[in-house]
């Protein structure tokens, strides 16, 4: 479904992505792991067209490198950025409305259903998004992207700075997304939920993929975890 081949990206003169290769198949949950600053966020931003890509990015067998962000989004690629960029002055409901595409009727997600899953959001439907807690904003951000009915959703560090109880909720939502046949690229630093829900994992180091495996194989590979993951 997503095929990234020899992807390079630069911030000014600094060469951040140095030939990234990975792929995601239909309905798969794949995690992209790695320490701070190795280029995980840059990878998803480059796929999304926010950073200029060099190399090949194929989504549903169509080359998307060079396309604009909104075109990529409209092809069915969803993106939840790491900064939880909700619209603080708009209400929770309006935030969700913004995620909808023009043909919202065929979407596998509806606003009322989201409110059912997350009563916290439902109770605050008409409240400005800016007053929500960090965890609620993360949920809102993920739900907003889902409203656009993506076939693959890339989620950047959804559990960062959240209490364990909320992390649990995030994990449940990820499970629900997968159950509806949506593929997931989960960008994480911690192993906790990635090991629990992923089908496959990639580990990134210094702008390249340094390891590919399953949760079981990564658990067995002590050397990989020591060199590229543990702090």
């Amino acid at each position, binding site marked *: 479904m997503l095929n990234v081949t020899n992807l390079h990206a630069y911030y000014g003169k600094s060469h951040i992505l140095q030939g990234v290769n990975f792929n995601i198949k239909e309905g798969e949950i794949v995690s992209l792991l790695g320490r701070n600053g190795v280029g995980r966020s840059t990878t998803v931003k480059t796929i*999304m067209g*926010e950073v200029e890509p060099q190399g090949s990015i194929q989504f549903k067998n169509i080359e998307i490198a060079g396309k*604009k*962000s*909104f075109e990529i*989004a*409209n092809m069915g690629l969803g*993106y939840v*950025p790491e900064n939880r*960029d909700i*619209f603080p*002055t*708009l209400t929770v409901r*309006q935030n969700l*409305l*913004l*995620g909808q*595409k023009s043909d919202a009727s065929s979407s596998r997600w509806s606003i009322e259903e989201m409110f059912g899953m997350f009563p916290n959001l439902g109770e605050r439907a008409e409240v400005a998004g800016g007053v929500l807690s960090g965890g609620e904003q993360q949920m809102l951000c993920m739900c*907003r*992207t889902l409203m*656009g009915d993506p076939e693959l959703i890339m989620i950047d560090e959804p559990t960062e700075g959240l209490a364990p109880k909320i992390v649990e909720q995030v994990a449940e939502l990820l499970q629900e997304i997968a159950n509806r046949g949506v593929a997931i690229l989960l960008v994480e630093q911690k192993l906790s939920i990635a090991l629990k829900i992923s089908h496959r994992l990639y580990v990134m180091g210094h702008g390249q993929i340094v390891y590919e495996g399953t949760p079981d194989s990564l658990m067995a590979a002590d050397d990989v975890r020591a060199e590229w993951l543990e702090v």
Partner: protein
Amino acid sequence: MLEVFIFATLNGLVTGLLLFMLASGLTLIFSMMGVLNFAHASFYMLGAYFAYSISLYFGFWSGLIFAPIIVGVLGALVERYGLRRVHQQGHVAELVFTFGLAFLIEEAVQFFWGADTKNYQSPDLLDFPLFTLFGQEFPAYRGFMIGISVAIFIGLYYVLTKSRIGIIIQAAITHPHTVSNLGHNVPLIFMGVFGVGSALAGVAGVIAGPVLTTFPGMAVVLGSIVFVIVVIGGLGSLAGAFIASILIGLLQSYAIASNLGMPDLLNLLGLEFGRDHPLTDLWTLTLPQIAPILPFLLLVLVLIFRPTGLMGKREQ
């Protein structure tokens, strides 16, 4: 005295609403681009001239409909093929571009229509007094100006706050990347807002042309005041622009109507100066004479005491 007050208030309202029709577009465009569009008032002038030419052949009402559409399309083209390209060179280049465009439009207007004042008239249909108060008449055309401005603003308010496209515009102004990632074509939205903002300025030109006269300097005359309003109101704030527009409209209107001179004011304060005082020119100024500089005076005061403008947010 009361009739003077009532008529001054009504006239101030007419001016204020007209100013807001320009200021609203200017401040919206500022929040999108982060740059003041110096050519904004030029679109106002184009509105008046296009409407004048159309009215010669098809009458005032056709001008009212088609002139703003033409101006809006022109505005959208300017954004798409001018500003969007210049944007990559940074804000200074954009500013210079809009400056140049303002001069270009003024020259073009002189070239095509000449440097003289055009005999652009309000429609006969509205050539009657709306009401007579204390023996003084209030022209129906001014009532029409108030009506059409208010109708447009109510419509815009609804679109901007209640409709889906309005919500997308609001979000795109503050978070363009996020909105783009959700699948919305942000450059197209910006072009649309620029076009609608220009069309609004065009409407203002169409309805103001017959009252404030249609001549090549009309953009500069009103443009400077509109900039003052946008700054006083707080850059990017629609509510602020509204308050500042009405405030300045009323202020100028009262100053003109009051017909008070400096001597009267000074006498009120218990001061008296002889006719042969060296500063006698200053003492004999009348408020109507001062009216045109009042907006700029207000600008200086606001900038000193509230640098972000009345409703502006502090820069982060």
